[in-house]
């Protein structure tokens, strides 16, 4: 085995003090770390080190910056107008300690979005959140599926706002300045061990500073191996349809598709 190959979680039929589990075939149903085997009540060495390796990669992913220039170029290639903004958090270290700053626009960005535009029905915001990797991997694919659906539904789409050091609620001041009726924030979710590239979509009716989490609808785990970008776009379009019909969002929205954010304090929302 070379150093670059993944370490197997357990090796069946290998004699020794570590005992493999007899249900390893069930791994085809889930990426969860099942059937790891055991050494006493602890993890076998290989499984223990595989975990440490995954944690190291996730730690590194949190600190990988979004390549905003590459993303803007990809948007321009598709003929979509875009505008780059930053939150009030000047760097990654401040961003991690001061989520309040990640929910506000920098002064320069406020000025940039205050230039007169024709108020869109839907503001689209792409933010790095806690994983620039997730945005890099999935954001354009979601937009490619979503924008035509919205246009076909007769909705006016604003310029794609690319935001660095962004939290979910940065979509509120963006939506307010653009005078948008609804917003969709595509943002990198907190990296896990097996998924450092998971994108979340947060949808808000009448995005304005002061909105609370229960007023948003969330589609999470958008990535290869999770919810496919096209499927996420279809869910988002359906939710937006319901929002425009009912003039509200979040837990008060009666929707055929997914509703409120996952139910844990913090909710993994960046």
């Amino acid at each position, binding site marked *: 085995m070379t150093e670059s190959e993944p370490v197997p979680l357990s090796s069946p039929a290998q004699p020794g003090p570590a005992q493999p*589990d007899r249900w390893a075939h069930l791994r085809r149903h889930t990426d969860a770390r099942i059937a790891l085997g055991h050494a006493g009540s602890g993890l076998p060495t290989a499984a223990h080190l595989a975990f440490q390796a995954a944690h190291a990669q996730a730690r590194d992913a949190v600190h990988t910056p979004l390549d905003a220039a590459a993303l803007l170029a990809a948007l321009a290639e598709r003929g979509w107008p875009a505008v780059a903004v930053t939150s009030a958090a000047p760097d990654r270290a401040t961003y991690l300690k001061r989520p309040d700053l990640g929910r506000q626009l920098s002064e320069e960005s406020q000025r940039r979005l205050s230039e007169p535009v024709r108020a869109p029905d839907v503001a689209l915001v792409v933010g790095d959140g806690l994983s620039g990797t997730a945005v890099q991997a999935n954001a354009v694919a979601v937009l490619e599926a979503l924008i035509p659906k919205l246009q076909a539904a007769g909705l006016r789409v604003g310029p794609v706002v690319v935001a660095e050091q962004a939290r979910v609620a940065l979509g509120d001041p963006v939506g307010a300045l653009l005078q948008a009726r609804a917003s969709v924030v595509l943002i990198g979710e907190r990296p896990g061990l097996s998924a450092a590239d998971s994108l979340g979509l947060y949808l808000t009716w009448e995005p304005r500073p002061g909105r609370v989490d229960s007023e948003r609808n969330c589609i999470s785990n958008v990535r290869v191996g999770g919810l496919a970008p096209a499927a996420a776009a279809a869910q988002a379009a359906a939710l937006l349809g319901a929002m425009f019909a009912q003039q509200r969002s979040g837990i008060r929205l009666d929707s055929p598709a997914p509703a409120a954010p996952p139910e844990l*304090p913090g909710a993994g929302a960046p």
Partner: protein
Amino acid sequence: MAFAHTLAGTRHQFPDLKTLLARASPPRSGDALAGLIAASAAERVAAQMALADLPLRHVLTEAVVPYEADEVTRLIVDGHDGAAFAPVAHLTVGGFRDWLLSEAADAAALTALAPGLTPEMVAAVSKIMRLQDLIAVAAKTRVVTRFRNTIGLPGRLSTRLQPNHPVDDPRGIAASVLDGLMYGSGDAVIGINPATDSVETMTTLLEMLEELRLRTGAPIQSCVLAHVTTALKAMERGAPVDLVFQSIAGTEAANRAFGVSLALLDEAWEAGKALNRGTVGDNLMYFETGQGSELSSGAHEGVDQQTVEARCYAVARRYRPLLVNTVVGFIGPEYLYDGKQITRAGLEDHFCAKLLGLPMGCDVCYTNHAEADQDDMDALLTLLGVAGCTFIMGVPGADDIMLNYQSTSFHDALYVRQVLGRRPAPEFEAWQQAAGIADSAGRLRFDPAASSLLPALPLPEEQP
């Protein structure tokens, strides 16, 4: 009321109780973020000394969130049991700490005292306690709850089996359920966080776990941790809802951010009780809390994050829950920065909830943007085990692939049970042997084919 204390020639002043509590709180990033943290280590100790001199009964007269403006405060004040409080009513906060550590404070005395304590009292005393004190006192408490088995008996440590899957795939969830049951997990609850909060998802997953229960005779309870409004709709449609779940907070405004109120929780509790599904008891609510959630929704009302967390427990105890747990490291480094802060917070929450009479567990956990790792989790898990924590989470390999954070694994639970001599709930332990999961000596067999589980889960036969 204003407070002051002179330390080394410097007079430190605190304009009101909530400021005194905040300045006395051991350091954590969330209080810094909120602008509530003590300006220096000396100011913190001065606040702790002033707090130690404060008569405990003063806490009853000065609300940290106004009575008129907050239904959680009204619940705390109106629900206070003066007779139960009487044995400690003459003490200062510092004297209360000494009493808690003394032999007079045994399990019976602490159980009788619980309705006489308020969240602010237990938060106050926790701020002048070391980890050792938080552990020693919590270990003396006894909180026992029942639904289909008995949680919290002496010498027991229960686990929530948490088989989450990123797209709620029933087979993927079933595979993790099997893994957990083979490793002895699941006596507190089999509890799934859904990726998609919908009545349909909730019903599908609950029906799968109901089938498992009915076919194997397992004395277990299930839960899909959707929003309480989703659970209400699912119950209306006849879904087999055992435990009713909700995340809760310590202020009315923060609960509003979670989309709940006491009236809504009352309605959900009544709906759950009406199903009458418990066999050995009717404790059926399951709450999750965690320091920082109030600040994260901008609804902490100027109260430090540990005190406002303790106020969650006043909400929880109204509903005689089967389980409460603090998801201590989930919220991120802006609230609890590193392993040291997470460790203290977990022990504080466990201590405060146990003193208030709650069946407190802890999701010993961290995220990848916090300064923490597996060593920190091992330390907190061991400390909580010694403190008599009611239950911990069991996640395959400690890696929750849906919520993207690290909790405790099935292996971790076996470790802490082994080193501390703890066992699962008695009904569950007996069933493990009957179902072929454990042998007649109670040792896990790690052999699904020898158990009754495989035909009861939607897992296809292995292809030859």
